[in-house]
């Protein structure tokens, strides 16, 4: 029987597609396909990644133009069927614009692009994406974005927190929430979010850039390994 298969969506302007592809291959050791944004069905996959980059140049608003691609209807159908979806960085922004998750992104509070390692705390591990982490684990993972300042109305935030939908939160290296540890101004320090069903995870930090010792951190590996385990 063939093993599980992952797909990495490629929009015009996506640029973390091959990084993500590489990480999935290396860490999970499963088959991966690139999925062109015009594709209309995703039925044959067990994991879909919406990777980082600048789909459509991030013009107008990050993620705003990509969301109308044909593959997005397929992605919605796939996720409604409980398929696993991982959105990273621009992928997060696209999932928000597509209303697959609530809220929206604003410019970083510094108004600048920020590329550096940050610390995030695992807030939840009873889900396919994080089951190999311990709750409260502090991970060092790079961010690289100009619009990662998550916003949602108070009511929505309450629901998110109430439902345990915040999966990663920016913290300092000791695991404490603070304004200084929050690189972009995100409300409640939200760095990663899932849907109520727990099969869609979106995060601003790049786990694929923290999955190889050579690159300075392997803290993102367990995310891919968790998914692998979930797919078994």
């Amino acid at each position, binding site marked *: 029987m063939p093993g599980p298969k992952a797909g990495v969506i490629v929009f015009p302007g996506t640029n973390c597609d091959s990084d993500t592809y590489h990480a999935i291959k290396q860490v999970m050791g499963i088959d991966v396909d690139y999925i062109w944004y015009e594709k209309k069905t995703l039925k044959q996959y067990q994991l879909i990644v919406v990777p980082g980059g600048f789909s459509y140049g991030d013009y107008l608003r990050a993620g*705003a133009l990509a969301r*109308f691609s044909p593959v997005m209807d397929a992605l919605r159908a796939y996720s409604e069927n409980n398929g696993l979806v991982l959105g990273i960085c621009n992928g997060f922004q696209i999932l928000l614009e597509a209303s697959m998750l609530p*809220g*929206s992104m*604003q*410019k970083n509070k510094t*108004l600048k692009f920020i590329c550096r390692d940050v610390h995030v705390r695992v807030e939840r591990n009873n889900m396919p994406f994080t089951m190999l982490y311990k709750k409260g684990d502090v991970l060092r993972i790079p961010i690289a974005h100009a619009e990662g300042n998550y*916003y949602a109305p108070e009511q929505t935030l309450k629901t998110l927190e109430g439902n345990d939908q915040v999966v990663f939160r920016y913290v300092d290296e000791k695991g404490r929430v603070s304004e200084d540890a929050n690189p972009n*101004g995100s409300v409640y320090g939200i760095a990663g979010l899932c849907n109520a069903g727990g099969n869609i995870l979106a995060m601003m930090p790049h786990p694929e850039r923290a999955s190889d010792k050579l690159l300075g951190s392997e803290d993102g590996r367990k995310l891919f390994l968790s998914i692998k385990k979930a797919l078994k």
Partner: protein
Amino acid sequence: MLAKIFIKPKKGILDPQGKAVFGALSRLGFSQIGDVRIGKYIEIRLNVNDKSSAHADVQKMCDTLLVNKLIEDFTFEIVEG
């Protein structure tokens, strides 16, 4: 016809860019300013003759693509020419 669309951050939504420009203007000595909000201005040329259908189209463009209504408000006007 020409559609002019004005988009701005919703009331109550933090506008970091506006805040930065407010700071810069204050430093330049413009002391009498209250608040600065920065949004988008979009001009779309429409090859149609009927103003009311143009209106409906632009409304739809804003609703589906141009505006993120969670954080933005908008108005627009259609002018001849």
